[in-house]
């Protein structure tokens, strides 16, 4: 055995050093700048561990490999996270304003538009990057603005870029307040942004809140069966919340389950970012495509909002369409902020929250649609 196999520093390559720096940057951003710390700190540490020379944590029996096989390859972690997410979400705003679910549907064009662009740059036409049909579909799913859905779909499709896609999906979540406002202002007039929507909507009964998750599982599962695991776990979590008799389980899903799985998921995703696989031109392009995905989704939501503005006789503020891109609850807050800029008496938060929770369901449906359609067209 030579010294290079004993001392990690002697086995350090420049690629591994770059990855250690990236891991350190994510930890810095998470702690010092408080950018999505819950995710970026575990991911950053996972990157550092995975790229430590001779550390062997990603070798066959290394603990990050074991976690990857147990939680990512089986698609278990994103589903467990979804139980927690479902228990955290209040679908009341959506149930009070059912029409806002169509804004969530429109914003999913971020997924399909980005897919089209990625495929155009890859195997579809230009061949500038090594993006197959499956890879392009996986890259497009960043537009769901939903981490667990991104992990689930990119892993299920077997994309070799899954780690970069997941990191891009989670990183851009923090950039929603920067990416969305310029697009929202560019696509709307001041008159549209100033529009005040009625503050109160019809009340929703407890029976409706309890039945909604069950009915949603049935509707989504019967039309897009591949989305059943995602919508099933999301709505199971929501049923725990709304049932009124499972408070302990609801709290456990929101706190203990979500926190534990977030730690394991973050470390594992970071552990997937090994220098040899990560440092490629394609990875850089995936991060560019991530911005495109969020921007296209936002634009599609706002444009659909403008259509609703016209069809409703100027009663729907088009800004709330921007909240259709899942990214809960960031994009709803962005809508509220941009609305207040145009009119200090314009409180759009509850309307945007309806579109935002709709985006959560829509992104799951879109993920299921991608899984159904890729085998047919790829």
């Amino acid at each position, binding site marked *: 055995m030579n010294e290079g196999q004993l001392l990690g520093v002697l086995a350090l390559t420049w690629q591994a050093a770059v990855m250690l720096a990236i891991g350190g940057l994510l930890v810095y951003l998470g702690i010092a700048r408080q950018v999505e710390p819950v995710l970026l700190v575990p991911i950053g540490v996972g990157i550092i561990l995975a790229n430590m020379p001779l550390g062997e944590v990603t070798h066959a029996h290394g603990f990050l490999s074991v976690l990857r096989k147990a939680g990512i390859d089986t698609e278990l972690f994103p589903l467990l996270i979804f139980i927690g997410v479902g228990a955290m979400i209040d679908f009341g705003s959506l149930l009070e304003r059912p029409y806002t679910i169509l804004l969530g549907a429109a914003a999913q064009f971020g997924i399909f538009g980005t897919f089209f662009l990625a495929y155009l740059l890859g195997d579809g036409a230009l061949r500038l990057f090594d993006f197959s049909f499956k890879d392009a579909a996986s890259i497009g799913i960043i537009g769901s603005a939903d981490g667990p859905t991104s992990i689930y779909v990119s892993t299920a499709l077997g994309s070799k870029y899954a780690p970069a896609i997941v990191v891009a999906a989670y990183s851009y979540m923090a950039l929603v307040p920067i990416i969305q406002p310029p697009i929202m202002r560019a696509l709307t007039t001041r008159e549209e942004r100033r529009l005040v929507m009625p503050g109160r909507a019809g009340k929703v009964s407890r029976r409706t809140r309890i039945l909604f998750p069950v009915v949603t599982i049935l509707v989504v599962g019967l039309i897009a069966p591949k989305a059943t695991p995602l919508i099933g776990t999301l709505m199971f979590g929501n049923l725990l919340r709304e049932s009124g008799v499972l408070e302990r389980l609801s709290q456990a899903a929101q706190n203990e389950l979500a926190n534990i799985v977030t730690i394991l998921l973050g470390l594992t995703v970071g552990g997937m970012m090994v220098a040899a696989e990560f440092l490629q031109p394609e990875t850089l392009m995936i991060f560019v495509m991530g911005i495109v995905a969020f921007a296209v989704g936002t634009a599609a939501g706002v444009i659909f909002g403008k259509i609703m503005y016209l069809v409703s006789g100027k009663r729907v503020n088009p800004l709330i369409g921007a909240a259709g891109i899942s990214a809960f609850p960031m994009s709803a807050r962005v809508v509220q902020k941009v609305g207040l800029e145009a009119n200090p008496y314009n409180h759009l938060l509850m309307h945007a929250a309806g579109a935002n929770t709709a985006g959560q*369901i829509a992104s799951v449906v879109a993920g299921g649609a991608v899984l159904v359609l890729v085998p047919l067209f790829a």
Partner: protein
Amino acid sequence: MLSAVWFVLGGMAIVFATLSLLVVVMLGLNRWLGPKPQAKTRGESPKERGQE
């Protein structure tokens, strides 16, 4: 590239079809299971007051 176009159209069609059905379901749930307006107590209506 034609398959990519069909993929995009098909995907958006599935999303809109599913969520449109959910709109109908939500409207139905709100209509049939929504909170009922409280029944008026006897003697509240103008007709009954007039009779007294």
